[in-house]
């Protein structure tokens, strides 16, 4: 399929969850929409390689705004993507006794205030934890999503809506035209390196880690972002931990929960999941994915497990199967206040070019809200 010299109302760069959902959302009011993805399928990078957590506020006991926002988005997401939600496990939040930034009491009070369900965990679960290191453990309502089912669903919806999809293609550069339209130069990865040229009225840059790649190559202002190389360990767990997920808050702790696409558990650790980091600065930009491919990968899974089994001794019986590595991109300011704001820059360097980035999957509704009124 080629769209050489074709013209679209909207081109969305990046076929992740945000890019695809936005395409479907915008298709209701727009004629021709194209999604350009560099991989050979959609939702292959950060949309897949994450903890698969559908947030319901519990994760942000120190930021009432973020927590409330999650509470609002949670039921909506659970309903809209009901067939992609994995509910067959019990989720627990434990509060560390030492090194934690919140106490069990503060945590419970906070969750009650924002109206999030929280009850003390049953004895079976209490017996699993080391009370010397965990002050309290609560039973909560939180789900996981299945990124593979999400991929299939979005693919179906893209097709039904009539959104065009261009895979194995990278937008290398964008340029403004005198008539306020935008011209996109594309690289084709599927063998022959021919260059496509596409024109669009509006362009949405939803490429997450790659957001600055288009900007830097087009000589547009680079957004200050922080990139981290992250590792999630994939675990085979002993029977008593099979159908549960436990997140230990709120400090240098860890979290394990089911990863539905592979039917295993993921373990991530605040201290050991991030391996390297770097910042994007004006004039000092490098392609995060290409950089990431060349970095050495020395697994920290053993460290994660050594620490985690002090809290939950049964994790000593866990088997490390493999690790999922990915680049995680965050706005530097979110490091300070623990909130996960979305990045949304309209007319960034070019009229009609919008850059969008969110930290977690249900931020999609915040994006829709922010873009409300743009098309009328």
């Amino acid at each position, binding site marked *: 399929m080629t769209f050489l010299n074709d013209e679209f109302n909207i081109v969305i760069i990046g076929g992740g969850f945000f890019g695809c959902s936005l395409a479907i959302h915008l298709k209701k009011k727009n004629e021709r929409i194209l999604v350009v993805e560099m991989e050979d399928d959609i939702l292959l990078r950060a949309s897949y390689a994450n903890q698969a957590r559908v947030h319901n506020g519990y994760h942000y006991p120190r930021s009432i705004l973020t927590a409330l926002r999650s509470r609002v988005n949670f039921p909506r997401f659970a309903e809209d993507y009901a067939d992609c939600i994995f509910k067959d496990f019990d989720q627990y939040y434990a509060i560390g006794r*030492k090194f934690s930034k919140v106490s069990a009491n503060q945590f419970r009070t906070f969750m009650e205030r924002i109206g999030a369900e929280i009850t003390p965990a049953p004895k079976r679960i209490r017996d699993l934890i080391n009370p010397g*290191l965990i002050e309290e453990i609560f039973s909560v309502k939180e789900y996981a999503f299945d990124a593979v089912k999400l991929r299939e669903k979005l693919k179906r919806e893209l097709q039904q809506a009539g959104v065009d999809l261009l895979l194995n293609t990278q937008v290398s550069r964008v340029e403004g035209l005198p008539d306020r339209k935008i011209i996109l130069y594309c690289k084709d990865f599927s063998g022959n390196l021919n260059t496509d040229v596409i024109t669009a009225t509006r362009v949405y840059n939803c490429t997450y880690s790659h957001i600055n790649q288009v900007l830097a190559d087009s000589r547009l202002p680079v957004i200050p972002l922080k990139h981290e190389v992250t590792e999630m360990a994939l675990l085979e767990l002993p029977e008593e931990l099979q159908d549960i997920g436990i997140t230990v808050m709120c*400090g240098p702790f860890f979290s394990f929960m089911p990863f539905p696409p592979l039917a295993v558990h993921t373990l991530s650790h605040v201290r050991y999941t991030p391996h*390297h*980091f*770097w910042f994007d600065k004006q004039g000092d930009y490098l392609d995060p994915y290409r950089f990431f491919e060349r970095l050495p990968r020395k697994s920290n899974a053993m*460290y994660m497990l050594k620490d985690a089994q*002090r809290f939950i001794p049964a994790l000593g019986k866990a088997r490390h199967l493999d690790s999922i590595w990915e680049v995680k991109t965050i706005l530097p300011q979110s490091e300070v206040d623990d909130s996960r704001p979305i990045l949304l820059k309209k007319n960034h360097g070019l009229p009609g070019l919008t850059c969008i980035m969110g930290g977690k999957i249900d931020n999609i509704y915040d994006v829709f809200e922010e873009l409300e009124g743009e098309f009328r």
Partner: protein
Amino acid sequence: MTTSDCFVSVVAPLKNDEKIVTDFMEEVVEILKTNFSNYELIMVDDGSDDKTVSLVEEKLKIFECIRLVRLSRHFGEEVAISAGLDSAIGDFIVVMMPNNDPPFAIPEMVSLCRNGTAGIVTGVRGHREKEPFWSRIGADLFYWYTKRVLDMNLPKNSTQFRVLSRQAVNAITQVRDQYRYIRLISNFIGYSQIEYTYEPINRSGKKQRRGFWQSINMAADIVIANSAHPLRVVSVLGLIAGLLNLLYITYVVLIFLFKAQVAEGWTTTNFQSALMFFFIFVILTVLSEYVGRILNEARRRPLYYIFDEKNSSVMLADAERRNVVEE
């Protein structure tokens, strides 16, 4: 030497150690790297107000597997070590003082702990000759008292330098006494101990010795926090004083009954009350010590507060980064 496959954590408390911290970290990391396949070095900053923290942060960018835990203020060496033990994840945990303990001894001590059945290997100072007379006598007295009277088997001349098995650390971290003396707690939890004799170093070259009052205070803290023996001595004293009083009262009554004329009795009265007051004050002193201790334990405050935790994040050096930049 082949690297051994066990995971070793090293915990080192820091307090205004800007002069030695860099050398110490370099030396320890070198030793760990060549001897163990997995390790971590946990530096616990106990409220330093010099450049210690920024020097450690520098090293976090260069060396892997270093962690910096910062306490919110100065809590004392023993509490800082506890904070380190609380977050160490290794199979064997080495506790050491950056200024005095030689890193080259780590592999030997770890293998002692590993090969033996001992849960704890305790570092013991080779000799005490350089110390003043009063300090040696005082120490002898203290060790005699703790061993014979209090039945605490405190290894003589033991230092902070020690290796603890995971089992031992798990037991130690359950003890949340406010007055902590890790040397004693490691003894309290049981498990067999081996002594390891070594010659302490003095990295900073500064003269450092515990003062007279500091030694007295520490001895008092250790004894009172770990034993009710002084209270028992006081009880006995009180009992004797009571008995003496009883005898005296009998004497007074007998005199009153059988002597026609009772003398003024000024001397005896004064002597008696003075003696009784002496006992009462001694008793009150010791009681107040214990009441104070009960108060502290009853408050159940957290042992320490963490200000910050930072970990090694070895950013690829700029040169390396440039190499990767495409085209």
